[in-house]
């Protein structure tokens, strides 16, 4: 195997690589061993600290919290896709009185940190008379405004990456602007951008964890609640491990879907640097 950085290794390099490989493995094992040792020495693996997580009632609670996380994610994902499409339509409009405000809206909501957005909803609005704002509404609205803006830019990057001839040919056969967008550009852009769009949905899923800070009762909220039970030895580390396992599995699952689509459509997100940059900026 040969690439930009190095040639295919010869016999001496192969021996050297074997040594370096062994050292790497030893170093990684040492780091893990150190962390595990700290866990063992501070009694994180004692039965007392894990007993709590054998109770069926606790299982039911964890399931409830997982569903709460998924509910916020699911609703926010659907709404941000819809908002993203609406903003895209506004952004490419020929009327400046539509496209300029849309541009400002998108840039504004991409720049405000998501947590601040959620705080504005949760702490800022109720005193103004919007007393119906629950943590759930704050989380979903924040996620939607932020990710909808990001997704609209991703869609736009997808449309701009298409060959000019696509739109020109469509206009030439007499299609209207709406038809060109709906029947020619969007289907191709969405297809090309599918892996990036799903990556952005992974960001949505990860960011539902911010709900913890605005008191939405999701997995981390439960982790803190059970971690502070003195009768079970305040098992904050075991409870973090349990919730982390659930959270990370969900994210890995969704990231796996993104990878699957990427392999199937053979159009990696690396091909569209602009779109990848947008997702990185939002992560």
């Amino acid at each position, binding site marked *: 195997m040969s690439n930009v950085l190095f040639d295919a290794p010869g016999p001496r390099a192969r021996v050297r690589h074997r040594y370096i*490989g062994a050292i790497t493995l030893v170093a990684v094992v040492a780091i893990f061993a150190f962390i595990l040792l700290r866990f063992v020495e501070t009694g994180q693996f004692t039965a007392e600290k894990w007993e709590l997580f054998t109770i069926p009632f606790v299982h039911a609670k964890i399931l409830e919290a997982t569903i709460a996380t998924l509910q916020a994610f699911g609703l926010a994902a659907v709404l941000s896709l819809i908002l993203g499409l609406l903003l895209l339509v506004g952004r490419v409009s020929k009327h400046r009185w539509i496209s300029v405000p849309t541009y400002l809206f998108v840039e504004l909501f991409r*720049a405000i940190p998501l*947590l601040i957005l959620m705080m504005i909803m949760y702490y800022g*609005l109720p005193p103004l008379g919007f007393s119906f704002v629950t943590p759930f509404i704050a989380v979903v609205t924040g996620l939607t405004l932020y990710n909808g803006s990001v997704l609209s830019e991703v869609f736009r990057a997808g449309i701009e990456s298409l060959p000019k001839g696509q739109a020109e040919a469509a206009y030439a056969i007499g299609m209207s602007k709406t038809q060109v967008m709906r029947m020619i550009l969007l289907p191709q852009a969405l297809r090309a951008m599918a892996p990036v769009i799903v990556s952005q949905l992974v960001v949505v899923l990860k960011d539902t964890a911010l709900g913890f800070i605005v008191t939405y009762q999701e997995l981390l909220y439960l982790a803190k609640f059970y971690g502070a039970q003195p009768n079970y030895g305040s098992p*904050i580390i075991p409870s973090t491990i349990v919730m982390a396992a659930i959270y990370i599995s969900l994210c890995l699952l969704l990231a796996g879907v993104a990878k699957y689509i990427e392999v199937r459509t053979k159009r990696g997100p690396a091909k569209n640097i602009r779109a990848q940059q947008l997702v990185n900026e939002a992560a």
Partner: protein
Amino acid sequence: MDTLLNNLDVFVDGFALTIQVFLWSALFALILGTVVGAMRVSPVAPMRAVGTGYVNLVRNTPLTLLMFFFAFGYPKLDLPSVSYTTLAIFALSLYSATYVAETLRAGINTVPLGQAEAARAIGLTFGQSMSQVLMPQAFRAVIPPMMSVFIALLKNTTVAAGFSVAEAGAIRATLSERGEPAIIVLLWVALLFVLLVAILSFVQRKLENGLKVLR
């Protein structure tokens, strides 16, 4: 306006800490990310595996969860006690390092193989071809996306506010004790963040135009 001017001390302290946390995390993320990125492109298989494992695992972990572990779990491990701010910097660095690593890797991959082959063909040594041919090109391709990573990092510093770090995201909590209306305070915080992000985006655009590689 009064809300901002009457509590300027809180705003200045908050944003000063935010910028401090941002700079330290950026530095550590850059160092760790470079190491991980180098592992991802190294010829040694176990190094590549470790790099890939790290990136895939941490990228799919919510930052809030990482901070949660550092803020609540770390103190239970009988390790040297450090401030919440330092713990937040750890979490932010570990998280952002994965994005730095991927950006570096993508940057190196933009350099066509022919460049390296041509460099070797005219007799440049490994060091020369790295420093004269490959790295200058990779560097240019990396800078704009790297700025995106830093913009994300700047916005992510606010998460630390949920874990006892008195940075910009925590200004609301401090000022609610002084009886200031939350919405005004938060809108000011949001506006200041928009300004900071705008500065970074401006620098990014300048660099992007200055460093463009025409192929």
